[in-house]
C-alpha cells in the first residue's frame, strides 16, 4: 500500500511501526544417536519471540541507533523493515510502503548494508558490481558516474574499484559495500553493524563519511551496532531493544540523564592517595599511582568538587559522564532481568 496523501500540517514520518512482532518456531536437536533417530519422527519445538510488539516512528533525516545485546531482535527488526521477512503480527510502513509486499518502487528507495555479509561479486572488481547496480536500479549514466565518483572520492577508494574484491581488506571492502549501497541515492538506509571488525582508522573514516552523506542527502538512517563510538559519532537518538521489546527510545543525552545517578571525576594528584582518603568524596573505583577515578553522585558534584580542590594537591582534574558503554550495558542487564522475571513461573 502506498500512501500518497500527505499531512498538510506536518510531514508524515518516513518509518512508522506499530506492534510489530516476529515469532519463530525452532526445532531442538537432542543429543545422542537414539534421540537423533527419534527426532526423525518427532522433533521437539518451541516458539521464539524474536520481536514482541515493537512500536516507533522515525522522521525524515533522523539517524537512529538501534542498540541491544546479541539476540535482542535488532537484525530481525531491520529485516522486517527491509521486507526480507514477514511479521507474525503488527504493521509497518517505510516511505509509505508495507515492506514485505516488496514493491519494486519501494526497493528502489532504500538500501541495506550488513557488516557481516558481502554483497559485492567476490571474484570481480567492485566496478563490475557497480555496473550491475546501475542496471538493476535504472540509474542513468551521467547520474551513475557523478554519484560513483563522489562516493569513491569521499571514501578515498578510487584505486580499489578495479581490484578483485577477494583481494581487499575488510575495511576496504566495507567502504566499497557502502558505495554500492548508496549509488542509487536511497532515501532510507539500514546499516547492520557496518563497523564490525574494522580498525579505528577505518571506523573513523566511515563515521566521517556517513555523517557527511546523511546530512547532505537528508537520509533517514537506522544503525545497529555494538560500538558506542559509532553511536556517539553519528546518532542523536537511540532505541534500546532487549528480548524483542523496546526498553528505551529517546535522545542520547537523555540516556545519560535518565539511567545514571553519578559522574566520573578523574584526579591527577601530586602523590599517591590512600583509598580511605578518597572515600568521603565518592566511590574510588580506580587508583593507579597518583591517578584516581571517583564516582560521585550528580546531586553532590557541585558541593564535592570545591572540597576536593581545597583539600588535595591537584595537577589536573576532569569531570565526565559515565561512559555510554557502561550505561548501555546496565540497560541490557535491566532488560535481561526483566525478561527472566517474565519467564519465571
Amino acid at each position: 500500500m502506498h500512501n500518497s496523501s500527505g499531512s498538510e500540517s506536518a510531514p508524515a514520518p518516513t518509518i512508522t511501526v506499530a506492534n510489530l512482532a516476529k515469532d519463530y518456531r525452532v526445532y531442538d536437536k537432542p543429543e545422542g544417536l537414539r534421540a537423533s533417530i527419534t527426532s526423525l519422527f518427532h522433533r521437539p519445538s518451541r516458539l521464539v519471540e524474536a520481536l514482541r510488539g515493537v512500536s516507533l516512528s522515525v522522521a525524515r533525516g533522523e539517524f537512529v541507533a538501534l542498540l541491544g545485546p546479541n539476540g535482542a531482535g535488532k537484525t530481525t527488526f531491520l529485516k522486517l523493515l527491509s521486507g526480507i521477512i514477514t511479521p507474525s503480527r503488527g504493521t509497518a510502513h517505510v516511505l509509505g510502503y508495507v515492506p514485505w509486499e516488496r514493491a519494486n518502487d519501494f526497493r528502489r528507495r532504500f538500501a541495506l548494508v550488513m557488516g557481516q555479509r558481502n554483497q559485492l561479486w567476490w571474484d570481480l572488481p567492485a566496478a563490475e558490481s557497480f555496473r550491475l547496480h546501475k542496471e538493476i536500479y535504472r540509474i542513468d549514466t551521467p547520474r551513475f558516474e557523478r554519484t560513483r565518483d563522489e562516493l569513491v572520492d569521499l571514501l578515498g577508494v578510487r584505486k580499489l574499484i578495479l581490484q578483485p574484491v577477494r583481494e581487499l581488506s575488510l575495511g576496504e571492502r566495507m567502504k566499497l559495500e557502502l558505495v554500492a549501497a548508496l549509488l542509487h541515492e536511497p532515501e532510507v538506509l539500514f546499516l547492520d553493524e557496518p563497523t564490525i571488525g574494522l580498525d579505528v582508522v577505518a571506523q573513523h573514516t566511515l563515521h566521517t563519511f556517513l555523517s557527511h552523506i546523511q546530512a547532505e542527502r537528508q537520509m533517514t538512517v537506522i544503525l545497529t551496532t555494538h560500538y558506542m563510538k559509532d553511536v556517539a559519532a553519528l546518532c542523536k537518538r537511540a532505541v534500546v531493544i532487549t528480548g524483542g521489546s523496546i526498553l528505551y527510545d529517546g535522545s542520547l543525552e537523555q540516556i545519560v540523564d535518565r539511567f545514571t545517578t553519578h559522574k566520573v571525576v578523574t584526579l591527577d594528584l601530586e602523590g599517591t592517595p590512600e583509598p580511605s582518603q578518597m572515600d568521603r568524596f565518592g566511590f574510588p573505583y580506580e587508583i593507579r599511582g597518583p591517578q584516581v577515578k571517583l564516582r560521585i553522585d550528580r546531586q553532590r558534584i557541585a558541593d564535592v568538587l570545591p572540597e576536593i580542590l581545597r583539600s588535595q594537591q591537584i595537577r589536573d582534574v576532569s569531570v565526565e559522564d559515565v561512559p555510554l558503554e557502561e550505561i548501555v550495558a546496565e540497560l541490557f542487564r535491566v532488560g535481561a532481568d526483566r525478561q527472566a522475571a517474565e519467564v519465571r513461573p
Partner: protein
Amino acid sequence: MNRYLSIFATFARACLVRDMTFRANFLLECVTSMGWMSMNLAFYLLIFTFTPEIGRDTGWTREPFFAFVATGLIINSIVQALFMPSAEELTEMVRTGGLDGVLVQPLDPQFLLSMHRIDFSSFANGLVGVGLLGWALGRMAHVPSPVAWLLYPLLILCGVAILYSLIIMLAAATILLGRNQSLYDFWFYLTNFSRYPAEIYAGPWGGPIRMLCTFVIPILLVVNVPARAISQPLTGQAWGMIAAALIAAVVALVVSRIVFQAAIMRYRSASS
C-alpha cells in the same frame, strides 16, 4: 523486459570476465564435460554394434537415436549453463542468509536467483550436440520437413522450460527447508529418465514410470518430443505429443512460479 535483458547481459559479461580470470579452470571444465560426453557416445555406439534399433519398430535406429542424444545435449547444455550454477548456489545462499541481499533488490527474485550465474563451459556440450545433430541428420534417410525445422527450436524451448520449472520447484523446496543439499542429486535422478527414448519404458514396470514421467513430472517430454519431431515423420501421435509438450511447458512454468512465490513469502532468513 529490456531491463531484464540488459541485466542478464551484465551477469553474462561478469561471469565471462570471471571465467577468463580462471582460464585453466574454464578449459578444464570444458575438457572434463566433453570427455564425459565422448564416453557416453562411445557407449551408445557400442550398443548399436549389438542391435540395429532400440526397441522393436520404435524408429530409434542408430542415426535417429544420435539425433535424440544430440537434442538431449543441446537442452541440457542450455540448462546447465544458464540455470544450474545459480540453483546449486542457492542452498548456500539460504543457509548463510545470502538470499537477503537478493530480496532487497528491485527485481524479480526468481530471475535473480535462477540466472545470476552463467557457466559458459557448459555451452561446449551444446556445440558438440549441434555438430552431432548435423552428422545424424545428414546420414538419415528421413528428411525433416520445414514444419519440423520450425517446431524443433520451439520444442527445445519447451524442454528447457520444463527443466527450468523443475529447478525452480527444487529451489523453492530449499527455501522452505532452509537446507536442501540433495537438490542436485534429486535433479540428477529425475533427469536420468529423460535421457532415453520413452518407448523403453514399457511392460509392468516401465508403463507406470512412463505415465508418471509424462503426465505428473513431464520429464519424458523434454527430449523425446523435439527429437522425434526432427528425426521421424510427424504422424498423428507425434502431434499429440507436441501439444502435450507445449501444454506441459506452460503449466510447469505457472505452477513453479506459484510455488516459488509461496516459498519466498515464507523465507525465514538466517542468523546474522
